[in-house]
């Protein structure tokens, strides 16, 4: 199945074709295996999702049939590869509803997208004494690049506080703005807590102060409909591998006028127009930001992931995951002393929890013995862990292929673990 642009647009408008969990599970070969002699229960989807057969097939087909370097060759394979690569860009445009195709920059992933903005736009607008606003629930990848920039420029990083439910305090956020505020960097969805931030409102408030916003969408794109025009977001970063696509390929969306005014990120092939010994001129968007031979195979296979999600439809995916989350909360709430961290009203299907007196690592090791894959630790959000006064959590994060039976296995697993460690 490879969808045309028109099919993608139509399916997106229609909300997809719906959901049959048994069919979906068959699409993911990795799920059907034993881990430690138990059927695998994969609940680490916020770290990375598994790949449907269509994505795997696309990778194999690329290397089997059309591998060539893109954009420069005039031979047939180069043209086929270039065309397939650019088809993905068109698909991403539709997926996030950007106005122009050239607003889609391919990167290695969310982290590189954010670093790109910090190293180009960030360096342009941030001076000594200026201020960058981040939130208390950022992943390190949307915190550290800004701290590094602030350190280099003598700027200040300010933090939007969070309440005990894991929701950002918007009234406090409003108070952080001063004439020195130049950038707001915030995630759309928290990787640790699952909180869906009111991104549109956050952006509108920043724009009232003429401040640009970069959103980390890594945890949002597989769950929520993304419309960058409706959000009016200035930059939006995400990764393919968290939405059933390959690793090593991500996107930076940026408003065209901003991307045009920014200096290049890296120098090399592809990003130049003309080079002499004296200097060079830069290529047009989006190539100005894509120096060197890109990750062609994974970019092409990324299209298969976009097709897959769009074909099923975000509304059906969201409904299924929400049902799983509600079921999980119901099941876990019955376990004595277990406390869910992150109880925002608006959440994706992420259940982070602690059991006082039991180290999260012990839980993770023993659940693994039961064939259950969860994530334990600080989830690259150490400041957030300090905010909640905990060392780490155990996190079960769900995807479209998870089932209630798997939640039952998780519940049984946790009960067994408590018995063993108690």
């Amino acid at each position: 199945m490879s969808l045309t642009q028109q099919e993608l647009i139509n399916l997106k408008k229609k909300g997809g074709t719906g959901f049959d969990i048994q069919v979906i599970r068959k699409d993911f070969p990795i799920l059907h295996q034993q881990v430690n002699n138990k059927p695998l229960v994969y609940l680490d989807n916020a770290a990375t999702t598994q790949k449907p057969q269509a994505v795997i097939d696309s990778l194999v087909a690329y290397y089997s049939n059309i591998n060539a370097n893109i954009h420069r060759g005039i031979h047939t394979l180069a043209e086929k590869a270039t065309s397939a690569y650019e088809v993905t860009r068109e698909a991403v445009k539709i997926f996030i509803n950007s106005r122009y195709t050239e607003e889609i920059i391919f990167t290695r992933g969310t982290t590189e997208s954010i670093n790109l903005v910090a190293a180009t736009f960030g360096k342009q607008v941030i001076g000594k004494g200026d201020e960058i606003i981040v939130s208390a629930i950022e992943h390190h990848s949307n915190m550290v690049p800004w701290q590094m920039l602030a350190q280099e420029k003598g700027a200040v990083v300010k933090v939007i506080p969070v309440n005990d439910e894991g929701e950002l305090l918007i009234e406090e956020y409003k108070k952080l703005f001063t004439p020195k505020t130049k950038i707001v960097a915030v995630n759309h969805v928290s990787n640790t807590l699952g909180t869906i931030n009111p991104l549109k409102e956050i952006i509108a408030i920043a724009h009232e102060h003429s401040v640009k916003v970069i959103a980390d969408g890594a945890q949002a794109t597989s769950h929520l409909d993304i419309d960058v025009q409706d959000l009016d977001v200035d930059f939006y970063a995400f990764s393919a591998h968290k939405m059933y696509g390959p690793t090593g390929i991500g996107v930076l969306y940026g408003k065209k006028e901003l991307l045009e005014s920014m200096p290049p990120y890296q120098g090399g092939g592809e990003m130049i127009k003309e080079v002499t010994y004296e200097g060079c001129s830069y290529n047009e968007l989006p190539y100005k930001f894509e120096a060197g031979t890109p990750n062609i195979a994974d970019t092409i296979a990324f299209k298969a992931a976009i097709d897959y999600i769009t074909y099923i439809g975000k509304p059906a995916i969201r409904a299924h995951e929400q049902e799983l989350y509600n079921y999980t909360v119901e099941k876990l709430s019955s376990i004595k002393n277990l406390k869910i961290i992150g109880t925002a009203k608006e959440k994706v299907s992420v259940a982070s929890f602690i059991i006082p007196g039991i180290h999260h690592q012990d839980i993770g090791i023993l659940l693994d013995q039961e064939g259950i894959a969860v994530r334990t630790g600080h989830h690259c959000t150490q400041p957030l862990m300090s905010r909640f006064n905990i060392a780490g959590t155990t996190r079960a994060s769900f995807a479209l292929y998870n089932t209630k039976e798997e939640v039952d296995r998780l519940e049984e697993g946790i009960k067994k673990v408590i018995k063993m460690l108690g």
Partner: protein
Amino acid sequence: MNSTSTIKNIQEEIIEEFNFLEEWDEKYAYIIELGKKLPPLDEKYKTEQNKIKGCQSQVWLHSELNGDIVNYYADSDALIVKGLVSLLVRVLSGHKPSEILQEDLYFLDKIGMKQHLSPTRSNGLAAMVKQMKMYALAFSSKLNS
């Protein structure tokens, strides 16, 4: 524990003990029990300097040279790691630095716990073994000087 046992003998003893445990949960239950039984490290030794920081759990390691014998004392904030720490202390503590440096640690592999020693497990155990050997090396040069 027989104080005259060699490092190799103690490793064989542990392998023997684990041979009786067939299911994974029996093995881990035993390790958890060892973790609980390990005497807590004196607070004065739980210093930043003695801390071996893993990504998820932490290990504290203190060592002393008594005569020509090295004694290790260790602790962890996670129970399974603490159990494994207890085994490592049991194997390496009470021996001469030269023995500690020479002997190969193979028992974790034989009892099916090798994966916890992988440097990517981010639990500080691999770093702890390295640190134990470093102390032995330092004590060894002290004895020889």
